[in-house]
């Protein structure tokens, strides 16, 4: 397990986990990260293929994630749908719609054609790998040291108090959900045009949920969640390394190794939880009229 492999596998999880932190700190549960990553991964590959530029693809991925998040924001904030249900529904729609789009745009139900990938430096890393190292620091500073970050935390802890002081709770929450979707979309793009170089119909294969686990494990802080994401990425890299050196594919044992990161995540959650505490108003719909 080399550091290089961790840096390769980390960006999808790190960006999606940061997205989860942003949304949940503002008081909106985001189970839909998985679906937003899926839209992002597909849109990034499609954008890169049609424009020929991976950078435009990256933007497409972020926008698609944000658009999917828009549906989540509309349902859970405007129509006050249950946030967990809305997120689960978004994942179902993403599963069906992206497969449908893959088939109607590229005529395949398996993979997209190869997409132009993000350029790699002489160490073999894309810009996203470095961004995954820096973004958590910037995000942590923003959340804990700026006025905007304070407002985000306020609407997640005690929205009514924030509203009393003139913060527009629903608008701010909507912005955070959209930003969360954009980050998840970048995470998805990191999968399709960062790691694999094409879109695969199985993407993101549970990475959105792993990111969610990273948010919980990281106690809803940007640095904690990013740290957890790197830990999971390391588990994934270790799994691949072990699987390779044990010739797991020949022995038909790869399933055990593939299950390993998920089992490890579950174990870590079971052992770590206890004192962790979600933002006080996380998942609680905000009604400006106070009913």
């Amino acid at each position: 397990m080399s550091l290089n492999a961790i840096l390769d596998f980390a960006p999808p999880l790190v960006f999606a986990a940061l997205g989860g932190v942003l949304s949940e700190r503002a008081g909106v549960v985001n189970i839909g990260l998985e679906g937003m990553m899926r839209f992002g991964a597909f849109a990034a590959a499609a954008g890169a293929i049609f424009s020929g530029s991976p950078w435009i693809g990256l933007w497409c991925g972020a926008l698609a994630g944000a658009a999917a998040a828009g549906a989540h924001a509309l349902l859970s904030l405007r129509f006050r749908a249950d946030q967990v249900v809305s997120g689960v529904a978004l994942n179902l729609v993403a599963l069906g719609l992206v497969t449908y789009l893959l088939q109607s745009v590229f005529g395949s139900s398996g993979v997209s054609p190869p997409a132009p990938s993000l350029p790699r430096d002489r160490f073999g890393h894309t810009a996203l790998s470095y961004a995954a190292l820096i973004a958590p620091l910037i995000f942590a500073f923003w959340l804990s040291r700026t006025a905007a970050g304070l407002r985000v935390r306020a609407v997640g802890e005690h929205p009514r108090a924030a509203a009393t002081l003139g913060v527009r709770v629903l608008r701010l929450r909507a912005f955070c959900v959209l930003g969360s979707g954009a980050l998840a979309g970048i995470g998805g793009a990191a999968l399709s045009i960062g790691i694999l170089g094409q879109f695969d119909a199985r993407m993101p294969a549970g990475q959105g949920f792993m990111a969610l686990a990273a948010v919980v494990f990281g106690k809803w802080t940007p640095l904690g969640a990013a740290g957890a994401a790197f830990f999971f990425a390391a588990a994934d890299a270790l799994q691949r390394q072990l699987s390779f050196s044990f010739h797991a594919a020949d022995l038909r044992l790869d399933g055990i190794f593939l299950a390993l990161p998920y089992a490890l995540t579950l174990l870590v959650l079971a052992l770590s939880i206890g004192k962790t505490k979600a933002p006080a108003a996380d998942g609680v719909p905000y009604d400006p009229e106070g009913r």
Partner: protein
Amino acid sequence: MPDAPPAGPDAAMSVRARLFSPARDPLWGAAFAVFTSLAVSFIAIAATGRNPALGFAYLADGAFGGAGPLGETAIKGAVLLLTGLSVSVAFTVGLFNIGAEGQLIWGALAAAVVGRFDLPLVLPCALLAAAAAGALWGLIPALLKVRRGVHEVISTILLNWIAIHLVHGWLVAGPLAAAGSGASVSVAGTEPIRAAAFLPRLLQGSRLDLGFPLALCIAFAVWYLLTRTHRGFEWRATGAGLEAAEASGIPASRRVCEAMALSGALSGLAGALLILGTEHKYPGVFRTGYGFDGIAVALVGGGTAAGTVFAGLFFGAIRAGATRLQLVGIHPSFAELIQGLAVLLVAAPRMFAPLLRRLRGAPGTAAAAPPVPTVQA
């Protein structure tokens, strides 16, 4: 508003109340959601330049056009109503079981393994084994929840992936693979089960089997258990408020575990219907999605046994019909899109509230409706 109570798994509001009480009229809400999702998918087909009317004609023909299609609708509906019931039962004690897929996979595997033995009552044994396997896999998130406080949404999702990889990537490809599949990439699956373990077919020219009436009987039993027995009452009390239930002497943690075991058992049985009814072995490639669809079925069905049966049969029809959509060049995953949209719409009952009020022409309905409980109240 005083201080907001802590949100999260043990918020004062039960999952059931949060999900379904805002829908002042669950039946109409679901009907509107289903109708609108069909209309939107109609437009989506037209938008990609295909003939939506023809597509829907194929869809209806594939679901209802004769004994064969009706049988397909029934067998798919039976599996879906079982996974839907699985999710509904978990709702009853306030848990959101996203793990029906993993429980179904273990149930299917158990049925495929036991179905190969030369036992006197091999069919009931295979069904029981499937229920037990699903129940065990459903018990894990329940124990993690009551002992360690791990949120069930996350643990069940992770357990799904663990089940998928362990069963598909290892057990069915390795130790349990049919002999003679050689060193090539195995898509053969396990050895076929014995003919005595097949669910008997009921009609000529259709794959309709005993699983459908069995699923309906199970649905009735679940309805009876939840609404007419002491234990069902305690489950509902636990779901309505864990601490209140505990304060009134109900061992709430135990009840959560029991309900999750039943939830898992129902998904396990759904897997058994697939194996014993149509597949007759654990196939090498087994991408069902029935477990995930169970979430949609339960939500659209309003979390009640009867609603879940109807929603299961409806989505079964969509699934059966969707295979014919390929004739107009539409991937069968289109069914998932319709389902997802229906859930999105059912999740937001407030979207339809003004429309419903206008339809009934009674401006006073809103005032007469029960107050919507919110956590902030």
